[in-house]
């Protein structure tokens, strides 16, 4: 029987079927952060459970830590960080905390350390765990109760999902990045359009991406509701596995981590690469996006009264008017960072636009490298110098920062941010803050122009 990559991954990790229709699946590797794990550890303690296999877990500090310096910015954050460290020490779990040269955003750290390989099953108390699909691994986000479950049993209860293949064929135009590709997919399938599905990305435009680009695509797949995102392993994957501290440690022998040629998916979506332009979001859901050359939608573009009301609500929150051109949207802040776009490749892409140019007067521009290792590499390559010469603030510590604003990097009420992150929800970057999602190169272009701008005008 032909199988999809997803089905091969599930089959390889099935421990047993459960009487109520779920199955138990084995978790090869589990990552924790400081804010979705405390109650899992206290659950273990209350119930008297041990950690099943401590060496299969890694904990990092990334969500609440300050990025201006290594000291936590307040007592509550310090408590979360210290609590995680204490729990890891107690249970013998690896902990990459502040000051550790391996620290950074979990989804940047894991591939950097060679902790992901094709065929693995990876869980983490964070929805963007879909990132690891870029390596042909099954990664998915879990809640805190499930974190406790993984710690205690090394397994999860699981229900096989349906499969969807999104094929992006044909070449993409110059200036179109992996971020634009996934934003186009989110726009096409819709937020929640892939709820209940594992999505495999295929086609020439995906094959052509480097590993960082593939991670950007799989990372944001959760914005369409996909609980898993996958890209078949190939030579690029193999090359990327070499030269890390953990590499070679993990290999499932005898399986090829690709979908069989004639495997059948429950749903097929196809998008032509040529139809993708650099995109920006105008609203408060990641699927509310338009090409940078276009205008914000008008009520007449929609038929149902619910859609008209949703438009009005989004525009009110975002402080925009119907039909306004994307390029007329003035920004206060430019932010480059997050597990979607803070890898060395992303920083290079932005620096390329910034080189020899200046951030517009009045725009506050910040870049937060995704990990300490990324920062060191970027500094060695001269990227820091380019960012700083252009007027960007280069943060010395890595973390999620303004992606979710759980530390002191918070946008003010009404502040408008051009952001390389993944969510433009109401209040995401601060209460009343207005987020426009785009690629790091587009953030750089907006920072220079002072308003949303077409990166293709800056080449």
């Amino acid at each position: 029987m032909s199988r999809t990559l997803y089905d091969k991954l599930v089959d390889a990790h099935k421990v047993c079927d459960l009487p109520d229709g779920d199955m138990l699946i084995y978790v090869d590797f589990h990552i924790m952060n400081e804010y979705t794990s405390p109650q899992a550890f206290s659950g273990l303690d209350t119930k008297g459970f041990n950690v099943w296999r401590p060496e299969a877990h890694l904990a990092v500090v990334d969500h609440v830590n300050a990025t201006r310096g290594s000291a936590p910015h307040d007592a509550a954050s310090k408590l979360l960080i210290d609590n995680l460290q204490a729990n890891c020490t107690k249970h013998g779990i690896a902990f990459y905390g502040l000051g550790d040269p391996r620290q950074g955003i979990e989804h940047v750290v894991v591939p950097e350390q060679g902790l992901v390989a094709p065929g693995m099953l990876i869980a983490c108390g964070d929805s963007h765990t879909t990132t690891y699909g870029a390596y042909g691994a099954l990664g998915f986000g879990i809640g805190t109760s499930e974190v406790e479950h993984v710690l205690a049993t090394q397994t999860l209860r699981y229900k096989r999902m349906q499969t969807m293949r999104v094929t992006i064929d044909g070449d993409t135009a110059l200036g179109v990045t992996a971020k634009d590709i996934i934003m186009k997919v989110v726009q096409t399938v819709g937020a929640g359009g892939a709820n209940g599905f594992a999505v495999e990305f295929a086609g020439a435009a995906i094959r052509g991406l480097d590993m960082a680009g593939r991670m950007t695509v799989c990372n944001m797949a959760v914005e369409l509701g996909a609980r898993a995102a996958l890209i078949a392993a190939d030579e690029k994957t193999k090359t990327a596995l070499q030269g890390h501290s953990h590499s070679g440690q993990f290999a499932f022998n005898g399986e090829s981590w690709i979908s069989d040629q004639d495997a059948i998916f429950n749903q097929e979506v196809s998008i032509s690469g040529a139809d993708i332009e650099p995109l920006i979001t105008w609203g408060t859901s990641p699927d509310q996006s338009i090409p940078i050359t276009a205008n914000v939608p008008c009520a007449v573009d929609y038929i149902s009264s619910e859609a008209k009301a949703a438009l009005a609500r989004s525009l009110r929150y975002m402080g925009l008017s119907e039909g306004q051109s994307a390029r007329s949207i003035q920004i206060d802040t430019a932010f480059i960072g997050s597990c979607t776009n803070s890898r060395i490749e992303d920083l290079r892409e932005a620096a390329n636009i910034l080189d020899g140019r200046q951030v517009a007067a009045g725009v506050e521009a910040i870049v937060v490298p995704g990990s300490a290792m990324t920062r060191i590499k970027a500094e060695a390559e001269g990227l820091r110098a380019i960012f700083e010469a252009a007027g960007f603030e280069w943060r010395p510590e890595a973390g999620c920062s303004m992606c979710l604003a759980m530390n002191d990097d918070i946008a003010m009420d009404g502040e408008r941010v051009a952001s390389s992150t993944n969510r433009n929800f109401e209040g995401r970057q601060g209460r009343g803050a207005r987020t426009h999602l785009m690629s790091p190169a587009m953030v750089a272009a907006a920072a220079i122009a002072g308003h949303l701008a077409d990166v293709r005008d800056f080449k």
Partner: protein
Amino acid sequence: MKDKQMTKTIMGIAAPLPLANVDTDVIMPKRFLITITREGLGDGAFADLRFDNAGQLRPDFILNNAPWTRASILIVGDNFGCGSSREHAVWGMRQLGINACIGTGFAGIFYDNARKNGLALPIVSPATRDFLLQFSSDARGHEISIDLESRMITAGDISASFEMDDATQTGLIRGRDDTLDTLEHAGAIRDYEAGLNKEMRISVLK
């Protein structure tokens, strides 16, 4: 550990919350997440919708108005619970007294989190959801009931079926601890591990 009490029927006043894509940042704003316990999250649930910048109740939010101040069921828009994996969203809703959300579809992680905490998420057709939105908008505050066993919702004279996978249904009715249940399969887990070669057992460097 003792089994929790069995719940077969959920009854109460429902509040209409028709917005689509209500994400977990809206359900539980991040300032409430800086905590190491599960307690005290009731105030955080829908905080930016419930309260204005000065901390006053916002009259334009449904749960701030009678009879919906007593609502224990929400009728929600598409893709409710999308976004971050934070289980705090579900803890907060439970602490606010919400026992069920009825909608056409939920984000995956939210769905699983809900089940672990006894929050029922019956999935209905768009037509049923629209009817329930209307029914629950009536200020007389008629109760609706959700029968988990027969997978039926009753609102006034109307009954409609809902979808819920077997494992979630069983979990909600029995209210047991999943971790405890799984440890009964420890032998199977050990057998699975025994079949892994050394390369397949990751060991993270400290």
